[in-house]
């Protein structure tokens, strides 16, 4: 074992300096010892790539705004660019996260797409396509995707039931569009609401106990 004469301690492992005082160890014995701790390489590189991409995105938005100020145009295209980049980053974050909570992600995507859609529709002069088509179709897609992924990934009922419930409730909202007469094309909405009601009734009739259990667990005070 090596010895630091300054600290008067023995040094295990193959250190060249004393971990305490930093002095070089004299007369290092030639017989190498087995390491006690592995050398773990840094993970800096991976982070660097993400930082560069983030930097490019921010720079692109800043430049586009300044170009728009100098050379004004009719459409506020830098804002659209900003939204596009935000959506891309949200997507990337969703991808990077593990497959756990896939059902939560579906619910989140539905909310994001709906909100962005309404905003976009309103921004380009309210044609109404977001309420007519986008929201009902997204909800239908979400309910179907939820059941398909649950089957494929063999999720246990408790893993997705709450989100199936939220999805179902969300899918009923378009009935308001119908009642208030906000929409011109009714087929997507009608299909969406019907599907949601069927899905919700299935959950309550067959899985009422699971819902109660999940709520107990998640809402205990």
């Amino acid at each position, binding site marked *: 074992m090596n010895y630091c004469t300054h*600290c008067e301690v*023995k040094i295990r492992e193959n250190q060249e300096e004393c*971990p*305490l005082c*930093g002095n070089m160890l004299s007369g290092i014995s030639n017989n190498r010892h087995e390491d006690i701790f592995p050398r773990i390489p*840094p993970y800096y590189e991976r982070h660097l790539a993400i930082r560069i991409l983030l930097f490019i995105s921010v720079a692109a938005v800043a430049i586009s705004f300044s170009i728009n100020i100098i050379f004004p145009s009719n459409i506020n295209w830098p804002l659209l660019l900003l939204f596009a980049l935000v959506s891309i980053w949200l997507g990337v974050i969703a991808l990077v996260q593990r497959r756990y909570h896939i059902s939560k992600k579906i619910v989140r995507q539905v909310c994001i797409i709906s909100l962005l859609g309404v905003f976009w529709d309103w921004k380009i002069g309210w044609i109404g396509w977001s309420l007519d088509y986008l929201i009902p179709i997204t909800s239908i897609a979400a309910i179907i995707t939820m059941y398909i992924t649950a089957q494929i990934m063999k999720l246990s009922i*408790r893993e997705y039931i709450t989100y199936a419930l939220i999805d179902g409730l969300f899918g009923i909202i378009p009935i308001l569009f119908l009642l208030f007469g906000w929409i011109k094309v009714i087929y997507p909405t009608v299909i969406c609401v019907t599907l949601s009601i069927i899905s919700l009734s299935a959950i309550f009739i067959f899985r009422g106990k699971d819902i109660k259990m999940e709520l107990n667990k998640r809402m*205990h*005070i």
Partner: protein
Amino acid sequence: MKQHKEEKWTRLDNASKFFPAVANNKDTKVFRFSCELYEDVDPEVLQQSLNLTMESFPFYNSILRRGFFWYYFESTYINPTVESENKPLCAPIYIRNEKNLLFRVFYYNKRINLEVFHSLTDGAGVIWFMETLIYHYMTIKYGEIFGNNIPRLNYKASISEKSDDSFRKNYNKKDNFLQRKSKQSSAYQIKGSRIKENRMKLIEGAMSVKSVLDISHEYNTTLTIFLTSLLIYSIYKEMPLNKKNKPIILSVPINLRPYFGSTTARNFFSTMNISHSTHSDNLDLNEIIQSVSNSFKENLTKEELDRKLNHFMSLEKSIFTRIVPLTIKDYAIYIANKLDDRKITSSISNIGKIIMPKEFNDYINQFSICVSARRPLITLCTYEDRLVISFTSPFEETDIQRRFFQFLSQKGVEIEITSNL
């Protein structure tokens, strides 16, 4: 039956609630318990032993999830697997929204390292898991040598006793959390340059228990009080002159099990703050020992521990705390913790004796324990005559560590130093 078992969930105990809110990359709230053998670790045997150990500790097979008001443990069927050590010391274990167990088992050359997220259990709770793991390892690996007289692991508690929430059990509703105790002044803060990537520097000093006990007796005190005082002394000696108006305050965890007759393998601890003013020009170790020993006496009475337990439980039980959504609670705990942090300079935690059957002595060199750290701090444990004192620190500087170990080596203690960086 299986269906029923699958849906089991458990509330977090009082201490566990704190850790998910404050764990981050700088302070992961993970601690590592290591066992160093004389031979290289056999991964297959280790895996078998882990599988057997899990049967006695079903509670460890849970993941931490977020409810709307509180976190909760959910039982799973994820099988823990042993891995060759591939992460920095005490790397994060609990990551929000990831479905991971709250502990991991690494091996590297001669060492078996068990890393645990603090919500699951405390140091005293994990000893038992580790003892069981090593017991199985020894009996599988060396069973033939022991022949018919396979040593027995002393039985301590049933499975339900192990997963007991002892905070809840010993709460007697006497306290009101609104009664705040007297305000403490802010403590001296150790500064330093952070190691990159938020890694931690571990410096382990292994020595003979007896030789340190002898020195403690020279000072007419116990091992824990002596080492606590020596830590204060080392910090004092390395303090810059212009900071010598703030007291040095050490946080010392107390294992509550012996005081309340609990055998839980979950969290059951409290902490006390040991404060020492640094006004006088030349602090003397004897003087520090005297005051530390008095603080220990005051804090370690059943009444005082009762009061602490009830104080924290009343906070948790108050309807006020309960109906606040978890996200807000998390922030509140995070901020409260930041403020409390200013009142602490460092900490020292003695996990105590690890006891294994005598027959294993020929195969086990030492046990050691270390913990993630926001500031230099000490954890220690003993096995047979080997005491391992582990300093962990997020800083490059090692002055306090050097001062601490040099004091011991100058007293004639033979020390073997190991470092991970």
